């Protein structure tokens, strides 16, 4: 037991931070948002070259085969830097494909995509949630009906990241109705430009885009199958857990940076002839901020550790997400409070962290939903 970063993890943290400090300034982040771009292609190319897109993917496909804990550290840093690239959907999808390949539960397409994912040649994303804000399997209604060697998809997905620029999207569909909510799901790879697919991209609070995607009799052939028919939950469950933990890592990374900016500001900004950071009320607020973000970080890392161990991370990931969503929002709010009016101004940088980390906390399941999962896991 040693919950601090080990040497390898520290190396990843320091290396990634140095890279982003040099390459990913707030101005660059701002530029991507203001231009309405979906990604920063140059930054993406660099991340691929450094081997970070495939950090935790199997080495046979060109990945770094690093443990999930190291990947989590990478995501903390990407969140801290507000890296304007679709790292999260890409890596989450690639890991799910790699798992299916490892289990021998997919065709050659998935294996090819994992190789391409490592070098950044093919951008991957995934489509899960539909109408309700929740992430449970019962929310999946998009139907896939067998058609010859493949399937026909009909329905819609509500919030898909980087959809228009992705090469492939892993779509959760219902191949069977009537059984348990977990049963009857199937994961299928769809090309965003396939006939019958239409998408509308919408700006988010974070300044990026989420697409609403409609599937009108879209044909997916047998090679698009990932995992087993009707038993997609087997793959989706660990995929969602990884997605939640990596999302928490980004929130924690960005929130910590927002808090550090507030601590620095409290040392410089004067009121009534004193630095505001010398007032006990501000000091105590800062003490809570660091305590909360540290708590979220530890929960996140513990869940990541469970995943790296190959043990079930359901409870740990739900606890991390429920806590991180709410406590990090509270940290961001207090960081804004310390900045006073300047936190409200677009020209001033603080809002870059605030809007993104807050928006990320609204993705991948609400605190209420995750607490419901916690209560269930506790056999209440």
């Amino acid at each position, binding site marked *: 037991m040693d919950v601090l970063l080990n040497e390898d993890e520290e190396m990843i943290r320091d290396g990634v931070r140095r890279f982003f400090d040099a390459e990913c300034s707030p101005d660059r982040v701002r530029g991507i948002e203001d231009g309405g771009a979906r990604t920063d292609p140059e930054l993406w190319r660099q991340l691929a070259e450094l081997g970070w897109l495939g950090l935790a993917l199997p080495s046979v496909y060109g990945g770094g085969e690093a443990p999930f804990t190291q990947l989590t550290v990478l995501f903390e840093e990407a969140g801290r830097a507000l890296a304007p690239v679709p790292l999260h959907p890409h890596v989450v999808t690639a890991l799910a494909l790699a798992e299916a390949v490892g289990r021998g539960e997919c065709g050659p397409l998935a294996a090819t995509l994992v190789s391409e994912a490592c070098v950044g040649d093919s951008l991957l994303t995934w489509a899960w949630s539909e109408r309700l804000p929740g992430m449970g399997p019962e929310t999946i209604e998009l139907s896939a009906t067998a058609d010859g060697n493949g399937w026909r998809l009909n329905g819609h997905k509500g919030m898909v990241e980087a959809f228009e620029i992705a090469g492939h999207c892993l779509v959760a569909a219902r191949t069977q109705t009537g059984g348990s909510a977990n049963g009857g799901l199937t994961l299928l790879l769809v090309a965003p430009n396939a006939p019958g697919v239409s998408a509308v991209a919408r700006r988010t609070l974070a300044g990026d885009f989420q697409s609403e995607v409609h599937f009108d009799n879209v044909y997916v052939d047998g090679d698009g199958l990932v995992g087993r028919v009707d038993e997609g939950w087997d793959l989706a469950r660990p995929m969602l857990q990884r997605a939640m933990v990596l999302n928490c890592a980004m929130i924690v990374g960005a929130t910590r940076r927002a808090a550090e900016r507030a601590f620095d500001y409290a040392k410089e900004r004067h009121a009534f002839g004193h630095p505001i950071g*010398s007032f006990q009320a501000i000091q105590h607020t800062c003490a809570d901020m660091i305590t909360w973000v540290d708590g979220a970080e530890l929960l996140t890392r513990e869940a990541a550790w469970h995943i790296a161990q190959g043990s079930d991370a359901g409870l740990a990931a739900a606890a991390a997400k429920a806590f991180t969503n709410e406590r990090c929002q509270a940290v961001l709010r207090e960081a804004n409070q310390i900045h006073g009016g300047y936190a409200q101004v677009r020209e001033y940088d603080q809002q870059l962290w605030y809007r993104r980390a807050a928006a990320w906390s609204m993705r991948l399941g609400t605190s209420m939903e995750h607490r419901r999962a916690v209560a269930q896991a506790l056999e209440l």
Partner: protein
Amino acid sequence: MDFGFSEENEAFRAEIRAFIAENVSPEIVQEMHDGTQGAGIGPLTKDLIHKIGQRGWIGMSWPEEYGGRDADIIDQYIFEEELARARVPLNLGNFIEQAPAIMNAGTEAQKQYFLPRLVRGDVTFALGYTEPSGGTDLASLKTRAVADGDDFVINGQKVFTTRAESSSHIYLMARTDPEAPKHRGISIFLVPMDTPGITVRPLWTLPGGRTNEVFLEDVRVPKESMLGAENEGWNIGASALNLGRAGARRYCIYVSPFEDLLKYLQTDDLGRDIARDPVVRDKVAELYCEAQVARLFTMRSLSMVRRGQNPPYEISSEKIWGPEFQVRTTEAASQILGPYHQLWEGEAAPNGGSFPRQYVNAMVSTFGHGSTQVMRTAIARRGLGLPRE
């Protein structure tokens, strides 16, 4: 990051559990409970401390020459966690806080005398820090120790001196130089409680336990009873206090009301019915997440201490989060159990009435041993480098 315990650690945990199953009877638990109500340490309890001491578990991470076994502090954490889970009050002998101070600052004679006796449970300390003038601003204490030949003569008053009625010694902070700045004129004395001039008067607390006022009137002690150098007492005491704030023992205190509540909702007939309410489930799940944070803060402090780091603010975070979580839990429990939560005794009282006791007891953690306000200031100044006004 490694959140797991090694096979050796787990084997040790199994050993402790077996020991508890064999040696901690309901009679002993009852006797220990009575001990906190003023009865003092009974024979069964003393025998238990002896047995624990014989196995080298009391000062586990101490050097072997002092009766410890040089064990990994993780084993000590496991030991504390398991005993706390079995509701064995671990502060019986104060071996965790005072022994390290004696090891660091004591003379050879003091080490030879106190350490083996602490390990065997023959010496127990009452903590004579707080005075009527205030516990948070401890350095303002007024009890005076005046040199007189080979002795010191001590006059003053302590308050909230828990277990003074049953301890063999008092670990006493007194002012030896009234002219020096307040932190620089304090010394520590290790004084037998049967020294003439010491009077103990009980103060009964809300949950039903006993603490005391201790009056010191011309208490004459030899100079050898001073721990460390004269006027250096503040530093010795402060380091003991900081370490005393971490560890499984305290985290277990913070989360035990939650664990009791959870168990009640999981296993009791009424509890299970109450736990069907989704609003209750949401609250309990929230508390669960927060309890994990309390546990993880302790694991973090331990990881840092084990790496030889002196945590600049992390122990203070632990000392804010845990106690405030404890208070939140008891307040939540009161609204989850409603009218049942007020029952202090009787058949209908959940857990025999332990919940309202925990309710009134919880906030001792938020001001004792470094108040949450002072801890917040310490984080801000020491951890984050925020300026003084």
